[in-house]
């Protein structure tokens, strides 16, 4: 990396310059879940807007080796990327984004650590593991192998890893005749009768029940589902500072999705972190911000956001059957970064008998891949500790959350399942059918 490119990358970006708005008021340090539990992270203010002054200095400071000094403080790597600092900043500073870019600058030009590279390749891991599901699941949950993996790779032996579900969602969906092509490859239903489903890696390889529930709910409301070719959204790479690889993912996804977006199809995702990446991070982190990227961003919806929007238009089938249970709900950090409120809670309120309670906790700790790392696992567990204890204390048999890595973290820590909100909606529709037809259907859903 040349000095010129460093200046280019840091100085001419709206994200970096938002640091100028910083009042040094400490609200970001106050809300930071990592700084709350771990002194090794000095807090978002210090590594973000304050350190940014040095990053923005021109000419770039040179250290004694003649290399540009990219950041005065490598402790930025303790940032989990949860984004709470940006959410709570009263002055509009893009603190988390500044920090993510700083981490990427540190990593740029270095070969990534094998562990960080590996856990960023979520679709690769999915693709290679799925055919060997029984073996892979046995290995990844065998204590001896996990100790070995921790020793060799640095993935903590107790960190939550998902179970492979066997054949991928895509191949099952294709086999049952689902639309899986690019726009123009096959005759498509009109955009008001179909949506593009961004399933992400989790629903493809591990949580196919989430994909099934999403399809059931979307079809119930008159939307056929199209699952065009897609790759990992790139967020794990972004989180690990591997921006080049993430840009490749972004480009490939945008190539496919933009064609649909331009035809008026909405892109709906069950992973709230993937949908946030499509919406915002391609531009804010990766500088992938051309017309195609913007078309994809504009067309992308988190599934609960999409369903609630249908409801506001009076188009959601509200003929939900009874789902009688207490349900602790954790709103993941990435959902908050969407800025769309808490749509899952609003949807839960439509289901008779479902008593959802917002746990009102900042972060479960996992932050994508952060809590998998040997050196960060304990920190991540302490971040989520209060949440885990309150879910356990609630006595509820399971909990709900919109993001897969959070669900795995919460399920592992609480010893009880954590489900996607759409699974409860699917269950409520099924319950309605079970008691004989759609009793109480309302609001003219498009069947």
């Amino acid at each position, binding site marked *: 990396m040349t000095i010129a490119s460093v200046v280019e990358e840091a100085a001419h970006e709206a994200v970096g310059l938002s640091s100028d708005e910083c009042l040094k*008021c*400490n*609200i970001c*340090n*106050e*809300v930071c879940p990592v*700084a*709350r539990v771990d*002194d*090794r992270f*000095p*807090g978002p203010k*210090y590594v973000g807007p304050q350190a940014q002054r040095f990053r923005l200095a021109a000419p770039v400071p040179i250290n004694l080796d003649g290399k540009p000094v990219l950041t005065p403080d490598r402790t930025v790597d303790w940032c989990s990327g949860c984004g709470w600092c*940006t*959410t*709570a*900043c*009263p*002055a*509009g500073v893009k603190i988390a984004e500044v920090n993510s870019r700083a981490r990427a600058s540190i990593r740029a030009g270095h070969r990534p650590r094998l562990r960080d590279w590996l856990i960023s390749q979520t679709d690769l891991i999915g693709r290679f593991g799925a055919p060997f599901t029984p073996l892979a699941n046995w290995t990844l949950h065998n204590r001896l192998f996990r100790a070995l993996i921790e020793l060799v790779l640095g993935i903590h032996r107790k960190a939550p890893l998902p179970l492979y579900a066997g054949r991928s969602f895509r191949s099952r969906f294709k086999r049952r005749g689902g639309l899986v092509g690019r726009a123009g490859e096959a005759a498509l239903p009109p955009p008001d009768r179909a949506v593009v489903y961004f399933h992400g890696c989790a629903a493809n390889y591990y949580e196919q029940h989430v994909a099934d529930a999403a399809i059931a709910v979307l079809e119930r409301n008159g939307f056929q589902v199209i699952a065009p070719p897609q790759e990992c959204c790139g967020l794990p790479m972004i989180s690990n500072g591997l921006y080049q690889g993430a840009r490749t993912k972004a480009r490939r996804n945008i190539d496919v999705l933009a064609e649909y977006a331009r035809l008026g199809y909405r892109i709906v995702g069950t992973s709230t972190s993937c949908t*946030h990446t499509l*919406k*915002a991070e391609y531009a804010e982190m990766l500088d992938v911000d051309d017309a195609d990227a913007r078309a994809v*961003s*504009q067309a*992308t919806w988190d599934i609960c956001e999409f369903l*609630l929007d249908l*409801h*506001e238009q009076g188009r959601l089938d509200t003929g939900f059957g009874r789902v009688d249970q207490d349900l602790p709900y954790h709103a993941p950090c990435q959902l*908050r*970064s*969407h*800025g*769309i*409120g*808490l749509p899952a*809670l*609003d949807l839960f*309120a439509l289901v008779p008998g479902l*008593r*959802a*309670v*917002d746990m*009102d906790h900042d972060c479960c700790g996992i932050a994508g891949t952060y809590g998998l790392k040997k050196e960060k696992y304990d920190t991540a567990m302490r971040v989520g500790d209060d949440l885990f204890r309150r879910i356990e204390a609630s006595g509820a048999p399971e909990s709900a959350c919109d993001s897969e890595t959070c669900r795995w973290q919460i399920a592992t820590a609480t010893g009880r399942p954590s489900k996607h909100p759409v699974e409860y909606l699917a269950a409520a529709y099924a319950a309605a059918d079970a008691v004989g037809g759609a009793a109480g259907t309302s609001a003219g859903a498009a069947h």
Partner: protein
Amino acid sequence: MPSADVAVIGAGLAGLLTAVRLAEDGARVVVLSEGNGTLHWAGGPIDLGFAPRASDAADAVRGLARRRGHPYALLGVDVAPALDWFLQLTTDLGLPHAGSLDGGFGPLPTGIGGVRPVSVVPAAQAAALEPWAPGERLVIAGQAGFKDFWPRAVASSLARPEVWGGFSRPARVTAVTVEWPGLHERRNLNALRIAEAFDNPDWRTAALDITARAVASTGPGPVRVGLPAVLGLRDHPRALDAAEERLGAPVMEFPLVPPGIPGIRLHDVLRAKLRARGGRLLLGERVARVETTRRKVTAVATTAATRELVTHVGALVLATGGIAGSGLIGEPSGVIRETVLGLPVEGPPIESWLSGDPLDPGSLPIAAAGLRTDDTLRPVDPGRPTDGPLFDNVRVVGALLAGQQWMVERCGDGVSLASAWRAAASLSGAAPKRRATPRRAEAVR
């Protein structure tokens, strides 16, 4: 769902109090805030008003109410009932305050060694309202290496009689520096981390015993102990009780630079109350656009990752603050812009935004900039106030109201309380007697 009886823009004291009051009356309330509000910078005292010759806060409020264009000219009469409500509310929420409108002022020392006149304070600062007895000493204790509170520096300032501005003062001021358990090895020691440590009963017992020994070493006789405002965050009431018991003396929390632990405590209990009443507080929501029909706001659109979050509203409360809270922006062109609705602002011309000594709070005429309202706090055009409200379902509360020099007049919290009270009453349809009507069942959230 993204519709609400009332949307409150801004999560400072005025916004949260308006929201809580409306939610108590059964309204569905959502608070939309760009970030955490100015309460997170607050040091504890509830400033109702002050003037050097005023006998008490009520007197100061009356004085300000006689000033043409001051918010108290309209709201002065509401300060007393609003304060009664606030005192009852905070007591119910486990964060009781002491003091009153007519109990006179007391001197509260601060973390930079100054003294501020106070009339209503959280319990942890109540000792400031009691006159100093003859021979009574002040011992200031703080953690070694905590960079926001230097006991010796604070004590050397407070040892000068003139700092106390004519108030009753201690016979002697002494500083002790202590080592609370485990803190010397901690990096990044800030007020919040120490406050969290005080939430732990075992830790605080040990810390307070260390402090008690240090205080005892300063000699015999009655003392009060001044501590940085870090006595617990979530378990503050018990931490305060423990402090007074272990130290065997009245304790005073000195306000520090932000983060303001006393303000965060107040924010947390008000937010919890709002949630318990089915209200919601959303952070990271900057208003992008407001939908209006003739003289009515129908929806608020806030910024989101892609498309705006649209909240349909029955009424809108502007609690966005003044220049400091970014409810107003002074443009380089000299225009002072109201950031949500673009309402006409009353304020000085650009040449006199600042005058005289920039460090003198009295030299900031722009601080008085804000919105003019009718007597139910609906915004009017300051040039043509008699034309009636610009919007029928909008209310303006807090620092956004024109005509207050809150840094000099020390009336900011009183204006917040009284305007929240007035706005909530007018949006609830009628007067406080409505409190007696049955409330809507609490929303299941």
